[in-house]
């Protein structure tokens, strides 16, 4: 199989278009790393400045074609990340981006400043699906100004690539996409999980202790393809599609819909080789269609 699957995300060269999504691959050291060969890049589990305990169990619930999670961004904090994980990342032959989270735009900025220059840290993915504590807890990602402010705060503190991961529950994702593009994002990641709820009919209350959780998995794929497509139409920077990808065909839907690359999340839980399988399937598809490179794949991307 010889099709050239490499992609260029604004100067960051990836050997393949299939990336590991944040929170579904840990810090890259946990999963049996059978799929490293095919991994375009890894996005780390979401990190805050300080360590966080996360939410009480139950944290996950399965739903038709998907799952809800409420992990609460459990993590060791930035210093432990730098100490315990970044050194291994520096050895790997694919880039690792850190998914950064905060309660105010200055917290995002501080995180970027602290991680900038740390060997092993190749860039940032800003998770704007966090409650903006200063603004009464509304998500940064729902408000174009807040989203832009966070992006700028990070942009000012680093020269590394800055990706922004968009929230799906908005009326018009194009508006947010343009706002963060204008604020200096190098790429967009679309999308994060949708908020959902599942009720325990024995206890007459939500199954998740946190009450709501983020829906991921195949169930959301048609929504994610649409949102990634809308984002791609709205901006000139690359868009990385995320949501419900389990097979090469799913990834190809995002790529044809205008995405430069994709991330695989939940599927990894089921199939630890999912990323390699998706990568190989894309290669096989391109070859079957007679394309010698991913860049030859026809795209459906009428511009707004």
């Amino acid at each position: 199989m010889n099709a050239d699957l490499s992609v260029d995300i604004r100067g960051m060269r990836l050997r393949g278009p299939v990336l590991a999504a944040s929170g579904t691959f840990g810090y890259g050291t946990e999963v049996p790393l059978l799929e490293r060969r095919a991994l375009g890049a890894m996005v780390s589990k979401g990190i805050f400045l300080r360590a966080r305990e996360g939410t009480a169990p139950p944290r996950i619930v399965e739903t038709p074609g998907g799952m809800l999670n409420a992990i609460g961004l459990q993590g060791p904090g930035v210093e432990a990340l730098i100490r315990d994980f970044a050194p291994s990342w520096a050895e790997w032959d694919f880039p690792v981006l850190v998914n950064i989270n905060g309660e105010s735009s200055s917290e995002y900025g501080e995180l970027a400043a602290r991680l900038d220059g740390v060997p092993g840290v190749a860039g940032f993915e800003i998770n704007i699906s966090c409650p903006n504590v200063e603004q009464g807890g509304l998500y940064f990602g729902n408000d174009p100004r807040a989203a832009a402010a966070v992006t700028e705060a990070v942009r000012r503190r680093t020269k590394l690539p800055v990706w922004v991961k968009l929230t799906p529950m908005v009326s018009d994702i194009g508006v947010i996409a343009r706002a963060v593009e204008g604020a200096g994002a190098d790429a967009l990641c679309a999308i994060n999980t949708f908020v959902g709820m599942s009720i325990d009919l024995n206890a007459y209350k939500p199954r998740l202790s946190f009450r709501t959780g983020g829906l991921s998995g195949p169930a959301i794929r048609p929504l994610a393809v649409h949102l990634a497509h809308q984002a791609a139409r709205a901006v000139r920077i690359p868009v990385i599609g995320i949501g419900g990808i389990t097979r090469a065909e799913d990834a190809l839907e995002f790529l044809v819909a205008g995405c430069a690359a994709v991330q695989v999340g939940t599927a990894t839980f089921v199939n630890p080789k999912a990323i390699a399988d998706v990568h190989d399937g894309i290669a096989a598809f391109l070859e079957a269609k007679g394309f010698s490179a991913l860049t030859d794949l026809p795209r459906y991307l009428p511009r707004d």
Partner: protein
Amino acid sequence: MFVLGLEAPEIASSVRAGQFVNLGWAGGPLLRRPFSVYRADGDHIEVVLKAVGAGTAQLLGMELGDRVSCLGPLGRGFELAGRSAVLVSGGLGVAPMPLVVRDARTSGMEVTWVHGARTAAELCAEAEGDTLIWATDDGSQGFHGTAVAAAPDGDVVVACGPNRMLAAVAERWPHAQVAVETYMGCGTGVCLGCAVPLRRGGYDRACKEGPVYHAADIDWSALPSHLAYAVGA
């Protein structure tokens, strides 16, 4: 209670008592389903289960030759060292015990297995050990009461069963090793879905640091005692 046999040579030859496998199959639920390894022999492993939801019902409908993807062995098993082992199980908590018996005997331990159920009809016919004690809630066989109450002491106490039973184990033997049940996403340590609340604060992953814990390390009041979820069509 049914036994499902799987051909899985690598797992069969390396599995330790208390470890589990994560099963997935075509046409099954989205997420894999975790099961303790019940027995291991040559190229085969066995798991024991009953139909509680869609996934287990499908597993029980499998036929000879059907293929199941089997990830494992996962998690940390029991540490078995000392002169005597007391095994306490309730309901499907029998699942890890045959391997505990195997490994304890390999370590030269004397084995007492106390198994509890609601009634005699629900007891596990396959229990073994140097001493076997039955306990039933209704007194229909053996000791009238819980397995915890029926059990003697020993150098090592291992227990598996409903989380409520394990909390009672923790009261009596803080240093008992207990295998807990949680919801699981990945089974491999990446999703953080299988959080076990710790007495010292924070959470461990049942699939990685567990499923076997020292009873005293768990914050039993924060561990869901009733795992009630069902996957809809």
